[in-house]
């Protein structure tokens, strides 16, 4: 009977609009919640079996979805560990229980943004109780081969254990100009000394002293372009001789001042293709880059003063932690008071095939569900994954304007549905009144 179907459709209309009102009110309530993704109520019509001479109102059904793929604007904040993702994807986090659990048992949650700060145990935690997960990096900042299809290699990010840190030096590059006039017959043969600093295994600063001694030409002969380089490691006690290099420089057109030939003695080895001296100092093996044959960088011999213009090295001296910062590729770096930075963790960005299929949890976190599909952990900023941005939080995707207009529409629709019920009621009243 079509009149009762109308009544039914009217009641369904009330129900679905009440559901939409609930989504709107939740959206408005969370309009300034960082990382909130707005929910939407979608209506779909129901159709009953139709005959040409009669019509039965099927009514309406509601589906609510959360639009997780909508991105909020990033706003800047004052904290380095306020992290937002500029683009698609979410950061892996876990709850308080997951911190103490093993990787396989740990609940894996995803969140688009979080205001993290160190808790009393050194873990990075949001006020809502989400703990940031990341891959621990070695001293070179590499995370190695990690599982990207599961969270087994992820660990809760802990800053406390890295309050002090040091890394031994393994590579040194030097740039120095030796005065060519010293190898002329007028040269005195006086040596030049150049300290090269490196960091040992305990983060102390040690010195290799390089001494450059020119070989002056005998009277009446052109300059020899020959120098002797002695390396002494002052870091060992007693100081150890690392060997000697006899370096001859070019003075031909186009390659003037570059290294022409190197002969080694006393334990030093030199590779003429890479320009590296391989040696072992107090902290272990170290390479010293002095430039390859014909290379303009490194050691040169030009008609200028003795000028050590460059000494670079890897490693880090001992330093106190000043703070942590995240870069666009998700590398969480510790900044030490010595000015050094070291990557502690890499924070991946998780992508799922259907973001809107993620099931929401408290604190703007989501869990992977059947509908979302499995996650894949990307490096931030690569592939489809967005970049991680420090000093920023993602705003709620709620737009008050949209919600207000939806509210008006919902109110009108609700009132109209109520009117249908009233009309059906009045029509049935008429029918009842026929038999009096």
């Amino acid at each position, binding site marked *: 009977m079509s009149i009762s179907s109308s009544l039914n459709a009217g009641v369904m209309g009330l129900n679905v609009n009440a559901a939409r009102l609930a989504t709107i009110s939740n959206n408005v309530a969370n309009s300034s919640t960082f990382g909130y993704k707005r929910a939407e109520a979608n209506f779909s019509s129901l159709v009953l079996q139709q005959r040409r001479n009669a019509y039965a109102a099927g009514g309406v059904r509601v589906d609510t979805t959360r639009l997780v793929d909508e991105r909020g604007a990033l706003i800047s904040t004052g904290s380095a560990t306020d992290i937002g993702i500029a683009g698609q994807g979410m950061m892996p986090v876990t709850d308080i229980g997951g911190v103490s659990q093993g990787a396989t048992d740990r609940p894996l949650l995803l969140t688009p943004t979080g205001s993290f700060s160190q808790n009393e145990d050194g873990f990075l935690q949001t006020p809502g109780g989400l703990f940031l997960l990341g891959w621990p990096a070695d001293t070179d900042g590499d995370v190695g081969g990690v599982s990207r299809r599961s969270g087994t290699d992820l660990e809760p990010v802990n800053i406390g254990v890295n309050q002090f840190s040091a890394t031994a030096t393994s590579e040194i590059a030097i740039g120095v100009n030796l005065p060519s006039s010293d190898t002329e017959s007028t040269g005195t043969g006086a040596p030049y000394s150049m300290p090269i600093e490196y960091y040992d295994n305990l983060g102390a600063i040690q010195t290799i002293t390089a001494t450059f001694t020119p070989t002056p030409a005998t009277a009446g002969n052109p300059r020899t372009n020959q120098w002797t380089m002695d390396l002494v490691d002052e870091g060992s006690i007693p100081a150890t001789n690392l060997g000697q290099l006899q370096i001859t420089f070019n003075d031909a057109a186009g390659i003037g001042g570059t290294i022409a030939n190197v002969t080694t003695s006393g334990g030093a080895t030199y590779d003429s293709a890479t320009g590296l001296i391989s040696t072992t100092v107090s902290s272990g093996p170290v390479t010293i880059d002095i430039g390859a044959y014909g290379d303009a960088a490194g050691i040169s011999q030009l008609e200028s003063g003795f000028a050590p213009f460059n000494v670079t090295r890897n490693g880090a001296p001992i330093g106190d932690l000043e703070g942590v910062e995240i870069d666009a590729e998700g590398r969480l770096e510790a900044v030490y008071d010595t*000015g050094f*930075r070291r990557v502690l963790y890499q924070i991946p960005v998780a992508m799922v095939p259907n973001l809107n299929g993620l099931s929401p949890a408290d604190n703007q976190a989501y869990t992977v569900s059947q509908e979302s599909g499995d996650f894949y952990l990307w490096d931030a900023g690569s592939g489809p994954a967005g970049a991680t941005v420090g000093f920023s939080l993602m705003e709620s995707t709620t737009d008050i304007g949209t919600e207000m207009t939806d509210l008006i529409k919902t109110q009108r629709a609700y009132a109209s549905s109520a009117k249908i019920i009233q009309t059906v009621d009045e029509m049935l009243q008429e029918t009842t009144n026929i038999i009096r």
Partner: protein
Amino acid sequence: MTFSNALSNALSGMNAATTAVQVRSNNIANASNPGYARRDVVLSTGVVGGVRVTSIERAGDPILLKDRLSAAARSAGLNAQSEAVEQLNQLFGEPGDTQGLFASLTRFETSLDDLAATPESGSYQAATLRAAQDLTNTINRLGDAVTEARTDADREIGATVAAVNRALSALEDLNGISSRGDANGLGDAAEQRQAQIDIIAQALDINVDDAGRGRLRITTAEGVLLLGETARTIEFSSGGIVAPGQTIGSGHLSGLTVDGVDITPKGGAQAIRSGYLAGQFAVRDEIVPEFSDRIDDLSQDIVDRFTGTGVDGTLAPGEEGLFISNGTGDGIAARISVNSAVNPDEGGELWRLRDGINATIAGPSANLGVIGGLLAAADAPRALSSVTDTPAVLSLSETTAAFASVVGTQRQDAVSAAAAATSTAQSLRDEELAITGVNTDQELQSLLLIEQAYAANARVVQVVSDMMARLLEI
């Protein structure tokens, strides 16, 4: 989405404007602070719309800075030398002075002339003795001043080295600070660092390189590392009183070393060449000793003129006469004195001026005695032993005048070199100030623009608010 985006864009615009106003206000507040370098705000588009303050840049030109530091070092060194030369020149005096060496010399010669005219006059004899004593006292004072000048230079080197070492260790502490994210770029770490660099650069010519991570690496212009990961110490020990003849070679005086490398000016291959330290070393080890040699020569000349039987028959060959040197070697100027044989206060007799130093009894009072010999000795042309740039054969007063002219020329050279270096340093300083200094007009003009930008952003907020209000009215 759209409303909140519009609001957050406007907010970022207002934030940028307030940052800019903060920077400009800091610039204007420091407009008359000579050590301050202007800061500028660098803006870029935000990651997801809006505007972002990328950094706050400190104005500067590293190449100009290097030139400026080098010129400042040179100027400080040459000025130290010129001051020393000027001081010595003043001590030495010029012909025609009413006091000092020339006046004493003239008085001595006049008194000898007077005594020659009336050899019997006791008061003239006394006057001659006084004039001779005055002459030796003046020369003694010069000798003492030389020691004092070297001692002062040595002490000044010690103080400068200590200041440089302090600045280096302060820089070691300041190193790396800027890499720790100076939150608003307005902190004074950069200024403090520059102040310490300026202290070091005054003392010696340095190269300042950026070693990355906000760290500086300082080497001397000759390539000796002063500040790497850690600060090196310049070793120097002050020698106390620097007596004539004491040198680095004699082991009495200290040079400069860093990490065992000798950087003493005029020393080894990596010796420092310029700066206040080099200047003071030149004063201590070259300019003053040279002057000392000159006055020693002059003193020796005065003693020698009155030595031997040719001047005074009572003297043995080679025996010192009216003036005695009291020993051999450097520093004669500080020791020269009048022979006690003619000084009644020291048991001598005034008449020996007339009758000869070793005369046992007074001769006839009108006798000219040896006075003629003394006069002739003062006027006799003599060749000087060591100092080369003095004309060869001269009388006593001519010798002194020749010395004065050499010292005067030296002073002229030093003063003009110092003046040239100072003006170069000053012009580079001015050029740097033109780049780093605060131009108040420019700041005020940009404040106007900032005000407009802020107002426009605030208007956007107002519009969004009105639109919301309109919506809620429905």
